[in-house]
């Protein structure tokens, strides 16, 4: 899978408080999970492109490219849902063979779920590309009241990962140099991963111990009352963004309902 990373381009979205962005993203996603028709989620996807272009200075082509893998997922979602969805009375059958019955209704739910995944992914890409990981952790400590000991430990771990990836390669090459060849087949793959995972994790634990000692010796988290090197602030545009996200999401649902398109998670579809 492609890993999308933070790009240091100044934009309105970039200047927003990371916790506020996280909450806005969460709000949109939760509203989206109520939708079960194949048209409404497309409005959310379009919304992500507009917000990206206007507020996030994210080129639409870049956003579209990042969504490519999800269209493959959508094909499988459509097929499996057509076959396995709890069929409502009078469902339109496309194809039937033995215990399998594919229906139009099922396929449409599958399409809706696939579009939902794409919409959530689009907002996720916007979030990650406009948020500095360090700022996110600072904001989680200062605004979301996550315990500093845990949050900064997470940041330290995050910073450690590139070193671990290098170590993984070093251990692999060292084992090769000593003439180790993994046996063939899936079992061999497992044996090789195990041989690599243990030394790499053991190395990570040793690093962690040194890091903990260094942090303790500097009095890290020794006192409950602490100051911050960089303080993150929550300003009125952050509140506006959060409210705006909720209002926009509900407006899409309302407009869709007014046109008779919207289909919520109804009893007819549930267990």
């Amino acid at each position, binding site marked *: 899978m492609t*890993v999308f990373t933070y790009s240091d381009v100044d934009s309105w979205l970039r200047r927003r408080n990371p916790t506020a962005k996280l909450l806005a993203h969460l709000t949109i996603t939760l509203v989206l999970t109520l939708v079960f028709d194949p048209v409404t989620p497309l409005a959310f996807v379009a919304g992500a492109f507009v917000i990206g272009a206007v507020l996030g200075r994210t080129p639409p082509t870049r956003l579209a490219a990042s969504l490519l893998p999800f269209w493959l997922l959508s094909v499988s979602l459509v097929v499996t849902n057509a076959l396995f969805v709890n069929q409502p009375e009078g469902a339109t059958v496309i194809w039937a063979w033995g215990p399998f019955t594919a229906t139009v209704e099922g396929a449409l739910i599958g399409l809706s779920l696939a579009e939902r995944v794409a919409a959530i992914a689009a907002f996720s890409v916007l*979030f990650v590309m406009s948020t500095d990981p360090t700022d996110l952790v600072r904001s989680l400590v200062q605004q979301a009241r996550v315990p500093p000991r845990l949050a900064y430990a997470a940041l330290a771990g995050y910073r450690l990962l590139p070193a671990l990836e290098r170590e993984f390669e070093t251990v692999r090459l060292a084992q090769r140099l000593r003439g180790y060849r993994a046996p063939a087949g899936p079992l061999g793959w497992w044996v090789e991963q195990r041989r690599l995972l243990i030394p790499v994790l053991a190395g990570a634990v040793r690093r962690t111990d040194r890091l903990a000692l260094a942090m303790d010796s500097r009095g890290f988290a020794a006192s409950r009352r602490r100051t911050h090197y960089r303080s993150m602030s929550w300003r009125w545009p952050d509140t506006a963004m959060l409210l705006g996200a909720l209002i926009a999401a509900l407006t899409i649902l309302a407009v869709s309902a007014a046109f008779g398109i919207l289909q919520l998670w109804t009893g007819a579809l549930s267990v």
Partner: protein
Amino acid sequence: MSSRRDDRGSIEPHGQSWRTRDALLIAVLAVVFGFLYLQWLPVWLAARGLGAQIGQEAVFGFWLAAGVLASYIVRLPGAALAGESLAALAEVLFGAAAGAPLLITGLVQGIGAELVFGIRRWRDYSLVTVVLAGAIAAVVAIPWNWFRLGYFALDPTFLLVLFIVRVLSGALLAGVFPKLLGDALAATGVLSGYRIGRARSEAI
């Protein structure tokens, strides 16, 4: 507060509170697993091709392993919950497509294991308890996972099959696997400063 120093210069755990090294170890394991969790996504997607939702539920258990492993090594209250939540945070930082809701997913997927270890007062880490923690974690996460995946629109009989597959997956991939990994790591000796290491040396 009385605390004595062990041979490695770090302060011994006093009662059931976390030291800096405990928090750091949980976080580092979580970040490594957050990375592995993302690599697992193609496996999960491929599993759908092989066995529809049944295949996906069969490999789902791996996404619950971080919390169980963290608790198995550190053996302190909150480790399972923190381990799984931070793994989810790491996934968000690495740009997971599922985005911010993963933070809720992380909490939900950590609760079950934390409950099981909590009932045993964070003292019993036998194979049975750990396997149970993995299985219960898988069960507790069902409402949220299946709601997000839209599974509740599926046929009830089919859901029962999915439930059974998921429990087995949780027991194996989030129970047996973290235990084997934790034991293999403890055998190298690097965990001597943590509770799992102390439990081993007492056994010897």
